[in-house]
């Protein structure tokens, strides 16, 4: 009685070699499959990048509008700013809106800024304008206004000193920076716009609806992609029926056949999604660049964001291709070796 052993699948390199050769020889078919992955992933990438650009642009637009409103408000209280000075008390680091306010103030013609408190943003204020002060007494008495800004608690002794000794307009970009009670004879203006809870709620709802809508579109489009890839691989299984049957006659295990299809799918998925991510990012940039302006669109995109999205897309591309290959691979691996013997093709 002779002994029958278990067949061991050949090493990964064998399957990989056969797959690479197959892809090279059947380049046309592989490219069709690749196009499927590429288009699906390009769509995903353009959605992701587009969303980032849109969010960034709308955040930037809101910041600019808010800053413009604050400056207009300030001008309404103090009169034109051209050629005048400004006292600034910085309670902490500035947010984008406050930085924008400073830029707009400079543009409005402020010539001197006496700055107290936290470090001033050197990139916005040239040395010729900026003058740092360490005591309330050093503030310019004729300045148009005292502007309190920054993330932190305003020094109330500073404010108190200002309140009592000058007739200046005191303004703040944040409501929280102003004390509750004021001395008489001082105009105190909060520049921050008060947002109603209903308004905030409505914004959050709108954002959620948007996320859901784009999520839905992405899911549907990826499903279509998966089905497209499945169809392409299924066609190539049909094409290779004899080949697979022959391999089974020669002792290939079902595991090996499945492995080949999964390797092929992940290779095509990888290349397709890298190309797709490039294409999608480029498309989103061009499309949004033309509608919002390229400087705004580019400013909204950061490299870490892009890389994160690209990594997500490549992972999704490989994952989807492998998922798409499950059914064709199982069809191929369940094939009877006897079908290789059928001579009629």
């Amino acid at each position, binding site marked *: 009685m002779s002994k029958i052993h278990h067949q061991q699948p050949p090493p990964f390199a064998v399957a990989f070699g056969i797959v690479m050769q197959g892809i090279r020889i059947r380049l046309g078919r592989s490219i069709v499959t690749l196009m499927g992955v590429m288009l699906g992933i390009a769509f995903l990438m353009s959605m992701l990048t587009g969303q980032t650009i849109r969010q960034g642009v709308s955040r930037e637009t809101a910041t600019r509008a808010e800053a413009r409103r604050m400056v207009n408000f300030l001008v309404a209280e103090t009169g034109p700013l051209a050629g005048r000075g400004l006292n600034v008390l910085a309670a902490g680091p500035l947010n984008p809106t406050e930085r924008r306010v400073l830029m707009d103030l400079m543009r409005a013609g402020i010539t001197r800024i006496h700055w107290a408190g936290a470090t001033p943003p050197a990139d916005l204020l040239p040395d010729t304008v900026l003058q740092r002060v360490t005591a309330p007494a050093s503030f310019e008495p004729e300045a148009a206004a005292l502007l309190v800004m920054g993330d932190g608690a305003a020094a109330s002794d500073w404010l108190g000193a200002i309140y009592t000794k000058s007739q200046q307009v005191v303004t703040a970009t944040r409501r929280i920076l102003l004390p509750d009670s004021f001395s008489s004879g001082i105009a105190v203006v909060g520049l921050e716009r008060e947002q109603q809870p209903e308004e905030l709620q409505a914004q959050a709802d709108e954002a959620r609806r948007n996320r859901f809508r784009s999520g839905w579109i992405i899911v549907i489009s990826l499903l279509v992609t998966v089905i497209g890839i499945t169809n392409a691989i299924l066609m190539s299984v049909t094409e290779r029926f004899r080949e697979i049957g022959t391999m089974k006659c*020669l002792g290939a295990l079902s595991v090996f056949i499945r492995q080949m299809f999964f390797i092929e799918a992940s290779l095509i998925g990888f290349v397709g999604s890298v190309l797709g991510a490039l294409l999608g990012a480029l498309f989103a940039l061009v499309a949004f660049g033309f509608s919002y302006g390229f400087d705004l669109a580019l400013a909204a995109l950061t490299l870490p964001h892009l890389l994160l999205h690209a990594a997500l897309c490549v992972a999704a591309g490989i994952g989807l291709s492998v998922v798409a290959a499950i059914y064709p691979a199982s069809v191929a691996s369940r094939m009877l070796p006897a079908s290789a013997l059928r001579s009629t093709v």
Partner: protein
Amino acid sequence: MKLPLPKLESLFPPDEQAGRRTMIRAVDVRKVYRMGAVETHALRGVSVDIQEGEYLSLMGPSGSGKSTLFNMIGGLAKPTSGKVYIDQVDIAQLDANEIAWLRCRKIGYIFQTYNLIQVMTCLENVMLPMSFAGLENDEARDKAMYILKLVGLAHRPLHKPAELSGGQQQRVALARALANSPDIILADEPTANLDLHTGEEMIELFASLRDELGVTVIAATHDLKMLKRSDRILWLADGQIIRAAHPREVDFASGEFH
């Protein structure tokens, strides 16, 4: 094609079990295909013993169950009822891995349409069963080159099958069948697509494999020359063996042997 047999012999290590054994035994094999409500009886109780080193020809019109029997004794399909023993092992008892092992090492298949893997070179085609058998790449390459040399194709190992003539392709197929030194060569109409001369070479090659190395050769064929060279001819009709005879007992000149 001259076969340097002493060289071929090195591929087939001598068997420690002396004497003839039954290589394939089929006992009352039946096969029923179901197509919806219709049952097709492809085999209606076939029993046959095939000895080690026998050169057996299978004959029968299409639909006679010839290919079904061929698949059964080649371990490519399992019977509906009855037993098939390959080298004294009941194939119904084997799981998928063991059957794959059996196909890989015990049996060499030769197909009517060669069935070479088109995307691979000749050398890779011959190496493939060796890879499945767990041979290292370098070792497989050396052995494949050796076998290709034996079948007279040493000068074009890196050609794709499509670049070769029918006869050359069938030689590659033979080399591939010999890759893991099988006990059984199973050939389906191996000469049907070959010209007269190449066909004769193939027949002689089978005969010498049988004579010198004790390989069991089973061929489905209608080729007169092949039938005459075989040890036994089986006629199949309607899923049953209707006649078995040595070529000496057959009058090939008359129409009766069809």
